[in-house]
């Protein structure tokens, strides 16, 4: 190894180390604070304790908000998976004009300000006579989750070799059976990963949800923000730590299914 190569090696390590440190800071800090005994976020914590987790268990409004968030995320992801997969098949297999426009349109909710989408929906739903908070949240969250499904399933489908289905049919499978036994297993990883990230996006959404909540129906991020504004203490860090744990689980599953490098594709 020449001196120049060694120097560039060190530079890579330095930049990588700095980036990792910078990116992980908020998550590490949150977790550290949640296990500390200090009320005023002292770091490093003077002593370790689980008091904030005990406190969290007794927090009013937290459990209902969590339940609402989980339900909305699960149902909207399921609906988005059906709509998104059908659409992805049309985009990859179809031979009709405007496919590029359609795919841009379907992914566009990711690119526009959530706040503006939320306001537009608030007024649009009012004009259409949709007033129920829960239903509005559900309808809005399908728009949030759909882009994740379409993007990933289109990617996976365009890599799928459709002659395998013809092969299965030659070997005696009916067309639906060939789809179920060949296409579904091949797509399963993309399906699960995109579903997982769509679910998390729905769970974490703030700027759209905030227009569709009232005193009785709140999603978790809305409830959390209310705690932050009313009484910021490390209990919020404990809730955050739970959400980070959920993200870690998703990452591990995603890595097993499709690999980290694939997840970084942009």
């Amino acid at each position, binding site marked *: 190894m020449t001196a120049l190569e060694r120097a560039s090696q060190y530079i*890579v390590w330095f*930049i*990588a180390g700095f*980036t*990792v440190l910078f*990116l*992980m*800071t*908020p998550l590490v*800090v*949150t977790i550290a*604070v949640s296990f500390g005994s200090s009320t005023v*976020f002292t*770091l490093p914590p003077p002593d370790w304790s689980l008091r904030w987790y005990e406190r969290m268990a007794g927090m009013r409004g937290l459990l209902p908000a969590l339940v609402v968030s989980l339900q909305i995320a699960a149902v909207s992801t399921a609906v988005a998976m059906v*709509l998104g997969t059908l*659409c992805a*098949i*049309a*985009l990859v297999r179809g031979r*009709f*004009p*405007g496919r590029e426009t*359609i795919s841009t349109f*379907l992914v566009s909710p990711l690119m*526009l*300000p*959530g706040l*503006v*989408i939320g*306001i*537009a929906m608030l*007024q*649009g*739903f009012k004009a*259409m006579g949709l007033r129920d908070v829960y239903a509005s949240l559900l309808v809005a969250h*399908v*728009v949030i989750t*759909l882009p994740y499904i379409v993007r990933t399933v289109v990617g996976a489908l365009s890599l799928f070799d459709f002659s395998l289905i013809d092969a299965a049919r030659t070997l005696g499978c009916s067309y639906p059976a060939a789809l179920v036994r060949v296409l579904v297993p091949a797509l399963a990883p993309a399906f699960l990963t995109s579903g997982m990230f769509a679910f*998390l996006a729905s769970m*974490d*959404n*703030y*700027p759209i949800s*905030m*227009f569709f909540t009232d005193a009785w129906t709140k999603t978790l*991020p809305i409830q*959390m*923000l209310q705690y*932050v504004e009313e009484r*910021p203490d490390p209990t*919020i*860090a404990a809730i*955050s730590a739970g959400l*980070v744990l959920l*993200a*870690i689980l998703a990452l591990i599953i995603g890595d097993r299914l499709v690999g*980290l*490098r694939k997840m*970084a594709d*942009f």
Partner: protein
Amino acid sequence: MTTKSAPSAWRDPVALLAAPAVLYLLVVYAFPLLWLFMKSLTGPGGLTIQPYVSFLSDPFNWRVVGNTLRVAAWVTVVCFVIGYPAAFALARAGAVLQAVMLVSIILPLSVGAVVKAFAWQIVLRRDGIVSQTLVGLGLWDEPQRLLFTETGLVLGAANIFLPFMILPIYSVVKLIDPRLSEAGATLGATPLYRFTHVTLPLTLPGIVSGVAFVFSMSVSMFVIPSLLIGDRFQTLATLTGRSFLLMRNEQLGSTTAVILLVLAVSIVVGSTWLARRIGGSQT
């Protein structure tokens, strides 16, 4: 009747599979956006740009627009300065280091903005890590509070949006053949010349999309400024949110929302056009 105007679309039955999703988005997403846009342009006497005129004639609002663009520009600069080298480090790192970097980039992406902004409230306190580190390094004489300052906002937002700068640049950096630069070196080009004439042009498409992502997200961020800088400092997005949720001034809110929408759409369209132009000139 429609079958005649668009015959090729209907000859392919597979196209029908796209219909449910497209119809759904048209009704609950495209129609409301269009409605918002139209409503912002109609007054009691028909078509009008009055709301925009009165919005722009108020110097306070100009300060809001200025705040929005200045913070977004700074966030983009910080993200670029950290993200560009980071993308190279990610591409050149060994397997283990690369995996660690990927985890630290992807993991924060699946954690919500409320969680991360709250974490930055802790980090930016007078006794927070940033202050402690800077004092420890001797750069600051005494601890300072960065929370509720513009610097703190830029730092927190840059941290939250950094993955959106690194990943697009990484996606082009990993495709660059390192031998290209070596060839330049063999031919006697200096490192600086090699960078400006080989590496930089090749990474330009990634830079354009990274900058577009970060800038448009910073322009429209809402939770992050509310938690990191507070109500004294208004941006277009916080003003939009406030006018709907607190002030109940839907007219003002719709106007600023449409301005944000137009800004975001022009960034997306502009960057796509730019990326295509750059990509086209290279082949």
